[in-house]
């Protein structure tokens, strides 16, 4: 039986996306593994650090040259930026180089945790949204901050589950749940995802999508892992739409006595032949 014809596609900045899996391109062991993992992921949006790519000629770039044949939306990120002004400068470099007008704002204040600087992130989001960018800020999992980012013009907000590359999963599902509840733009869980179960958890919480890089690129088999992530994100989304059961403290039998074989074998007190 097919479900309704309701089109459950993620829309960001007016663009209807084929996939809810946003794909990070860093740290893959070889171009072949990157290409095959990207195919297995079936992702449409890819992210990469602007500081790493060749802005003079994008087609020459050591990374982007391997994905030029695919129909993708680029989400250049400002990783390494420490201030709003720097992030804005990087975003403009990327747009100037023809990489599109989407940008992932990523501003870190601490080299060890790489946690986002909330104040600079808000400033940069405001400046870039006013300048016509489709802004997706990577942010702390703070519900108030996320709503301020939304007011500042973010096309989606991307709270981290835990620090970048840590693989610690969703450390504060309660906050993420609040963010999702209140947001009027898509919420993409970015950073800290360790395995497909974290991605499925994020989607079941009601996230609109998941951005993952390290848990795919550094897996023993990134191609297989990309496929596993795709399936987990799809499964989590379906589960969210399907509606999970409430949690109960004690068992409740999955088959009721009346309808069971043993129930039927007992002498019946009603019905039957008179």
């Amino acid at each position, binding site marked *: 039986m097919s479900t309704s014809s309701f089109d459950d596609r993620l829309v960001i900045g007016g663009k209807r996306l084929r996939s809810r899996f946003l794909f990070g391109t860093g740290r893959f062991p070889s171009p072949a593994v990157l290409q095959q993992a990207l195919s297995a992921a079936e992702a449409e949006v890819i992210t990469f650090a602007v500081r790493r790519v060749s802005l003079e000629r994008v087609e020459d770039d050591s990374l982007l040259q391997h994905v030029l044949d695919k129909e993708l939306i680029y989400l250049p990120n400002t990783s390494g930026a420490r201030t709003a002004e*720097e992030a804005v400068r990087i975003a403009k470099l990327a747009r100037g180089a023809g990489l599109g007008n989407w940008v992932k704002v990523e501003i870190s204040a601490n080299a060890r945790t790489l946690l986002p600087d909330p104040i600079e992130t808000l400033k940069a989001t405001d400046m870039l949204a006013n300048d016509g960018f489709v802004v997706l800020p990577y942010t702390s999992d703070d519900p108030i901050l996320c709503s301020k980012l939304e007011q500042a013009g973010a096309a989606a907000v991307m709270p981290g589950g835990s620090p970048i590359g840590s693989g610690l999963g969703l450390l504060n599902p309660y906050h993420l749940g609040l963010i999702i509840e209140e947001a009027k733009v898509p919420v993409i869980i970015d950073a800290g995802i360790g395995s497909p179960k974290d991605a499925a958890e994020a989607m079941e919480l009601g996230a609109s999508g998941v951005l993952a890089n390290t848990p795919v690129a550094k897996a023993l088999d990134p191609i297989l892992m990309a496929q596993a992530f795709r399936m987990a994100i799809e499964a989590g989304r379906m589960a969210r739409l399907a509606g999970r059961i409430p949690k109960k403290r004690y068992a409740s039998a999955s088959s009721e006595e009346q309808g069971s074989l043993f129930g039927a074998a007992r002498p019946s007190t009603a019905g039957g032949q008179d």
Partner: protein
Amino acid sequence: MASTIIILGGGIIGLSCAYEAAKRGLKVSIIEPGAFGGQASGAAAGMLAPFSENTEQPDHFFQLCYSSLNLFPAWISEIESITGISTEWVQSGSIHVFQHEADLLPIQSRLQWHNEWGARSELVSQAQLRKLEPHITEDAIAGIYTPGESHVFAPKLAIALEAACSKLGIEMISQAGQLEDLKPSAVGGASIRMQNMRKARHADQVVICSGAWASQFEQYLGLSIPIHPIRGQICSYEMQEIEIRHIVFSSQAYWVGKKNDRLVCGASEDVAGFDTTTTERGIQRLVRSSAEWFPFLQDRAVAHQWAGLRPATRDGMPLIGTISGMPGIMMAAGHYRNGILLSPITAKLIGDLLEDKAVRLSLGAFAPSRFTVCL
């Protein structure tokens, strides 16, 4: 303990393993389907740069690279003195150059762990950078200088190793053609049959050092061996003098000044099966990158261009070790961009395994069976 050894594959890894096994008194034959010198080996820029190649964390792969760097000085001088062939080892140091302010943040954590491992790396300012590399573009705003990194001339190293193997009395068989069969033998050890060899050959141990071709052994070993060739295109310029003093890395390319008045620029990586031709696109992106980072190269013509096949793996780490259920067969393949650097440590590990000696490094991360899951 094994006493007769067949090394399959005559690239830098196979030659190094054969040399090591013979030094330990084992009777060694090395069998190469084509010509000695390999497909990745001779094409490599010969950089010994474990820090620059590992910027994220001191994982198992970094530790393997690091151990190998430490073996290099003694290993090189031994091979050079046995053969009288210079491998043109240049202790140049390296500089990773940056154009963006945003590059500086990740440098901090990199420098911290690199220096804990003795890299003696330092962040150099634009002014210092121009003193170290006078010809670098003014757009370079900073660099990481790592004094302990160096380079050899890879084709010479391959020639020297081949000569060293001959000197040790190793049976050297080239042009053996394709592998036709490999099987464990009922009497112990394993036997192989090659297209151009009349008889099957048997040894107590067969060591597979087949680089990018190693996945063909899947059918004989019952293992998943996801090694695939990545083409690496390289070009070189004529140099009047030493115009680039260090190994210079950027996000797009690297430059190495060789002793033979050649400046080598690499590498354009792409996925092209076993094709080793160069492409206009692959070489021209190096040319444009060279002109951008070193403006004096703008008007200089490319002198040579070539390509090699690098054996890449799914997780970026080589396959080194014994194969469970096949006591007569071991493997050392999948070294990707680091085969030259990893030669001495790979040879030492294989030598220890051949002698049933305890191995210093944990080999779990490199186990050839790690991609094969049963049940």
